[in-house]
């Protein structure tokens, strides 16, 4: 025990002292705790708080010498690569964007587009890998996104709060609508949702003329509202669409086939099962045929199999499937 008291514990204290010194030095170098804070005002100060907090922008970007992340472009004036701070740079980028697209683009439009649709005009030399800031886990509200836009514009640009908040341009308004729709659907990412939809739903459902016909056509599904879509995914049997009822067919040998009736002709019917297999049954062999309102051909365990993110992404994607105007149809 003597050894422990006289030699081992002093040794431990020295080691712990070095550990604390390293922690202290690193903190001196890079700064203290990172507090997440939500913006209360649509202002550059509110945006700055979001940038260095809840928005987690600092994870990939720096502002001049502030911060050390380099995954995304530096938003301040920094070296030869970034001679202009973000507000002034946005004016230049917007001009390039306008020339390329042939439409009017303001600096605010450019910044809002970068936040709402980051893959649209990626800075050369950087990957299209920015997170969707209005989706979980970041989940910025429209108000917070406006605040970040104000902060970006305040970095060497002309801060026009009307263009950001009360009187946005048509382009900006379009992105604001997108963010609102996505936020209403739990803040999912519609782009990711399109991928999830293609992988999991398109084999059975039609969307804008593409896909399978086992399930209802989902073009314009947003008209049915978020609650209906949500329920259809989580509890498909509770919201069966007319014409897509589940049939239970029992033949004379007692075999039971459950699925969607996809063909009904004089002598036979086709039942498409949940796994996509099509079973043709002669009508003369049918002992009993009935619809079952408690069952859906659609798998009822999707919510269990999907991650929260998948679910939110797909909801936001479906909420963007607006009915087309009659003329267009």
């Amino acid at each position, binding site marked *: *025990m*003597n*050894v*422990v008291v006289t*030699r*081992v*514990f002093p*040794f*431990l*204290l020295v*080691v*712990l002292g070095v*550990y*604390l010194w*390293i*922690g*202290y030095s*690193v*903190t001196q*170098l*890079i*700064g*203290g*705790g*990172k507090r*997440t804070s939500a913006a209360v005002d649509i202002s550059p100060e509110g945006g700055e708080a979001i940038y260095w907090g*809840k928005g*987690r922008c*600092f*994870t*990939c970007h720096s502002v001049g*010498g502030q*911060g*050390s992340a*380099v*995954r995304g472009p*530096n938003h301040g004036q*920094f*070296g*030869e*690569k970034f001679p202009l701070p973000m507000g002034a740079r946005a004016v230049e980028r917007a001009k390039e964007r306008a020339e390329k697209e042939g439409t009017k683009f303001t600096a605010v439009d450019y910044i809002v587009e970068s936040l709402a649709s980051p893959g649209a005009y990626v800075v050369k030399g950087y990957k299209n*890998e920015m*997170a969707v800031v209005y989706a*979980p*886990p*970041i989940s910025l509200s429209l108000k917070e996104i406006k605040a970040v836009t104000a902060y970006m514009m305040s970095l060497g640009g002309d801060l026009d709060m009307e263009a950001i908040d009360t009187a946005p341009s048509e382009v900006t308004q379009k992105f604001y609508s997108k963010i609102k729709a996505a936020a209403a*659907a*739990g803040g999912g990412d519609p782009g990711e949702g399109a991928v999830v939809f293609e992988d999991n739903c398109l084999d059975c459902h039609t969307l804008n003329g593409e896909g399978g016909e086992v399930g209802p056509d989902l073009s314009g599904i947003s008209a049915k509202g978020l609650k209906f879509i*949500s329920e259809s995914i*989580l509890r498909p049997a509770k919201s069966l669409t007319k014409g897509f009822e589940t049939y239970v067919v029992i033949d004379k040998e007692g075999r039971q086939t459950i699925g969607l009736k996809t063909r009904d002709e004089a002598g036979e019917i086709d039942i498409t099962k949940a796994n996509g297999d099509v079973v043709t049954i002669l009508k003369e062999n049918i002992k009993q045929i009935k619809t079952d309102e408690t069952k859906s051909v659609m798998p009822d365990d999707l*919510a*269990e*199999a*999907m*991650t*929260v*993110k998948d*679910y*939110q992404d797909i*909801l936001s994607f479906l909420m963007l499937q607006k009915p087309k105007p009659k003329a267009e149809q």
Partner: protein
Amino acid sequence: MMADRHGKGAISTRRYLAWCAIVSGAVAMFVLTAPAFAQEENVYRQFVGLDSRRLVWFLAQMHLFFGAFVLGVPLFAVIIEVIGWKKKDPKFDKLAYEFTSLLSVAYATTAALGGLLAFALFTLYPTFMGYMAGIFKDVMFMYALLFFGETFALYLYYYGWKLLSSDKPFAPNLQRLFKALGLIVGAFGVAFAFGLIGGEMRVDTRWFILLLYIAPTAVGLLIIKDLKSSHIFIGILLNVFGTAIMQLANSWAGFMMSPVGVDGEGNFVGTVWEAFENILATPIAVHRMLGNMAFGGLVAGSYAAVKFLSAKTMEEKAHYDWMGYISNLVAIAALIPLPFAGYYLGREVYSTSAIMGNNMMGGDFSWTFIIQAMLVGSLFVISNYYLWSGMTRIPGAERYYKFIKYILLALILSFAIWLTPHNLPLSGQEVGEMGGSQFHPMLKYLGLMPAKNAVVNLIILATFFSFLLYRRGNMLEVVSIRDQGRGARITILVVGLAAIALVLQYAVTMLTMDPGSLDLPADRAQYIRMIGYLLVFEAAVGVVAIVLALMDRGKLGQVLYLAVTAFNVAVFLGVWGFVVMEKASPVLRNVAVAQFIQLISCLILVSVIDVFLFKRAKSLGEFQWGRMSNRSQYALLLLTFIITMNMGLMGFIRSGLRGDWHIFGVMRDTSEWAYTPSNFVMTQQVGAAVLLFMIGCAFMFWLGGVASKKEE
């Protein structure tokens, strides 16, 4: 039931009842708490005005330190007991018993701290815990039941050691019964492996359960033939219960990071099983298990070091020197695969959320990872130093001293590269001096993953090489493998070919992989195929190494395979990693897997050749146990301190990755403590926990010493 023949039953029973009450109380809280949902406003409370987050953090850290020790030690205690049983060497049996004796107090402390942690969580974070209990209530019941199982197994294992030491065979019918049970469990395992049972299970969960629960239980039943082997089976059960408890608790931590089955409003609509086997549950469990083993080994090693330093006789020194050596060996064995388990966990974190992944390596925790790299690098360097110090007790080992400087150079260079960050916060002047770039023109490459992957492999190979030198320290003339009989040749061939098959199966994967599966265009196939060709080359060299070993040129075979593997993993794939990063970055993870597979294949093949190369070799003298410098014992202690600090640091990162979410993306932390603390706060918090844990260890070791003196 809890009484033992040393008259310690009363104390044990009291301790047992005490923790049972704690666990039962905690379970009652789980069950009585009404399920709450994520959308409800969170309620937070404080205890005597303390910062609740830091209080829970501290208690969780203490619980995990003691828990890791309690789960880690039985893993190798049983293996050592089996070695003693097979070799019929009571020295190993005594050592295994001594390791187990350290557990008794630690176990009760773990349970007490676990109860305290549960009370703190339920009282200070009622909404969050209500939500978790609503989802995991079944798992929590299971957790409590397994605790009973582990308690019975532990006390039976420890207190029944001498009672169950007879090697008098059981009646043949009883032996047959155990064998039949073993075969049934084994058959169940085979069906389970092929998905005939539990077909919907995730692959990683399935293999975790198969390898850590079903297979050991089957083997344990098959070996039962007397009381001693029954005792080993109890030890196996102790590990099965302990690992299962850890896996259940990890599923909660995993769910908090990668929740599944939750709808848009935060309501849980999935099944308990889906919540249990969430994406991160198994990667965390694998990483933690290896970490526990290394940690348990080193804490036991620190016990041996303290005993060595205070030993009064040479005999005592010899015993504790040997114990320290075994402890360090156990730790190294667990440390070697640990970086890969970390890579697997990190990859899954990225898969779960790129935001969480970015935050880990490039955000709030990038500098914490640099501290972690310093600690892990120190672990390897100091472990090597301990091995080199150990060579002084081996007659004839001085022949190999000349290699040490080269190994040290390789370790230091690798360590330096591992530590190099991709970029640093710089002043405007410094940026100007670097041509306006935030990156150093050369050092920037060393901060990227290909460089780090290469040097991690090199560090492991260097450590393995140190071990090989240590092993052959006192060995002189080798006995021809051809003269060792068919068994030796068959073993080298079978094990060697298995190692090569491991390489080849991945070569086939690389040669047939569709680039489209990685979202790459068809013309990027060349970057994948090159890895396949390299693996075929590695396998061919492996075959040559086997042939050389069978022709009694085993040393040449070892050198060849080691050199080629080092070149492939550290040089070729190190450079190829940069090419891939530029042209086909998704392939980078395949590069890492290829490096890992070649390394493992090399460790297996070179080890099996080594075993037979020096079997019955002429010895230059016995190991002079006890003839170790005191400095080496401080190295052992330092290893323990470092791994403990590192565990605390990694816990901070894993938990902190969720940012201001209790449950990532589902339930936000709206308390006043919802922020990521600085690295200084982390070192303060972890440092305090380490200090208290070490004081606890000193107390446990002192108690263990008192008990063993009484026994003597």
